[in-house]
């Protein structure tokens, strides 16, 4: 098994007032390359915290996180930012597009951090938008798009720099059932046809059903593992 994400003994504590709260208690987890993992659990169980750690948005209090052979728990702010730019694509529940930029410019944003020329950035963005079926909407601003289209643009932005890992936080949480289905099929396509490793937090068992396997977090502990693809 070719492990892409290796998590060992990870804990995460927060200080709230004078109280120290441990959100994650010694998580051990391997995510193979090409996997599509749905991370579920009740509110406050630590799903998003774990996702933040895997995506390099936060650092663990203790333990190690290795992604594609690199110990990201040891990286500082600037190095971690560069690592995220090169290796991770993010998809959020509320899309988080920049409202003043067109779909095309939103998708190009991660490429501003590369050495690509303006023409190359434009071409890469066009390809990403074509992949999510929105090439003809490239000039539209987010407010001119439907929720589903906005999420497609967000997915195009997440994949435009060809990252190793896609981190999705409730990607269908703000969408109706039919649109959610389309988005999940898109993520599934990216996983199956383009080999993207996806870690997705969701409350929705239907959305989780599109993943290859499901993980359940409960009170900061990894509780149950389901092989959803098999079921």
């Amino acid at each position, binding site marked *: 098994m070719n492990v892409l994400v290796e998590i060992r003994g990870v804990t995460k504590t927060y200080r709230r007032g004078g109280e120290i709260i441990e959100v994650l208690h010694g998580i051990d987890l391997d995510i193979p390359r090409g996997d599509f993992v749905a991370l579920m659990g009740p509110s406050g169980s630590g799903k998003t915290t774990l996702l933040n750690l895997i995506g390099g948005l936060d650092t663990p209090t203790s333990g190690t996180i290795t992604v594609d052979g690199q110990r990201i728990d040891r990286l500082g702010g600037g190095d971690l930012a560069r690592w995220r*730019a090169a290796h991770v694509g993010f998809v959020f529940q509320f899309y*988080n597009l*920049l409202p003043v930029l067109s779909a095309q*410019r939103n998708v190009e*944003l*991660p490429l*501003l*951090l590369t050495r690509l020329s*303006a023409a190359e950035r434009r071409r890469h963005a066009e390809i990403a938008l074509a992949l999510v079926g929105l090439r003809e909407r490239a000039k539209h601003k987010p407010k001119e798009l439907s929720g589903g289209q906005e999420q497609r643009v967000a997915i195009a932005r997440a994949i435009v720099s060809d990252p190793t890992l896609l981190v999705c936080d409730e990607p269908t949480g703000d969408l109706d059932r039919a649109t959610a289905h389309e988005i999940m099929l898109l993520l599934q396509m990216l996983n199956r046809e383009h080999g993207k490793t996806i870690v997705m937090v969701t409350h929705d068992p239907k959305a989780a059903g599109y993943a290859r396997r499901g993980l359940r977090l409960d009170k900061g502990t990894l509780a149950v593992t389901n092989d959803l693809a098999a079921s």
Partner: protein
Amino acid sequence: MKYLPLVWSQLFRRKTRTVLTLLSVLVAFLLFGLLQAVQIAFESGADSADAKRLLTTARYSIIEPLPMSYALRMERVQGVVAVAYADWFGAKYQNESNAFAVFAVDPARYLDMYPEFEIAPAQREAFMKTRTGAVAGKRLMDRYGWKVGQKLPISSEIHAKTDGSLDWEFDLVGVFDAEDPAVRANTDVVLINVAYFDEARQSGRGKTGWYITRIADADQARTIAADVDRLFMNSPDETKTAPEKEFAVGFAKQIGDLGALVTRILLAVFFTILILTGNTMAQAIRERIPELAILKTLGFSNVTVTALVLGEAALLLGIGATLGMLTAVSIIPGLNSATGGRFPPLFVHAETFVLAAVVALALALAVGLPPALRVHRLRIVEALAGHR
């Protein structure tokens, strides 16, 4: 440059707010450009002053005339190289609003005294030889469309001719100019030949307004000035001699300490702009915290995101300052026309543009740094909470 479209889009996300802020910055820099021009115009005499020139006026009032015969005596003072003199004519051209300076001078003495005034040798010669001759600064020539060779009819507010008429006519035989902008500001003047003027005027013959003395050594200016004044002490026409720069500064101060006044006005204006744009920037950034957190999520470093915020402030101040200065430049010719030559001509110096750029940059840093530092410290996880 690749970040410019992003910074531009962010700046104009709330167009009305940005345009209003830009307008206030524009007005501030318009005021800056105009007030600097006024200050420079009134101080240009001092700027173009020559350390080797002294000015001599009547001791108790600069409007009291002095005998022309003083020239020969002043020339004999040790350290004096040359002496020239000039008299105020008080001119109007065609109507009341076309007023400018006209000096009655000995052509050779005066033009030798001011070598920075450039005039063609043949025209200089013509000025010296033509008793009714006059030469004019190029800006005046351009303003009134005068041509060398024409008659120049001007009225005096002070000097009547022997027939009682205040209307004079001179032959315009030459034009002079200067390359240095500070000197050029002093060329809005017509020089007339004192030989004809003195002979044709009804009263005040043999008198002149002030003397200009060239000395060999600038370090000896005070000593020579004292020697000159001592020469005429206890005479009916006592003198007061001072270095040209001191005289020019003193003259400018007669209308108030313009420099201090301008500085205080501009400080008040820019302080207001600081508060206004600072508030606008802080509000704009506060509204966009989740978006800035997204940029960080995508891999934009703290330094890059901080630079984007500072760039936005710099763009706002830069556009406003540029538009303000351009507006100042575009309306100054109209102001110069409106004053009809009663005031020194206004123009925006290259130094004023540099100063405007420095002020704009300083303001950009002052208004951009607080929100930029806030963004620098922004923790992605906290900023995104509730916006995922």
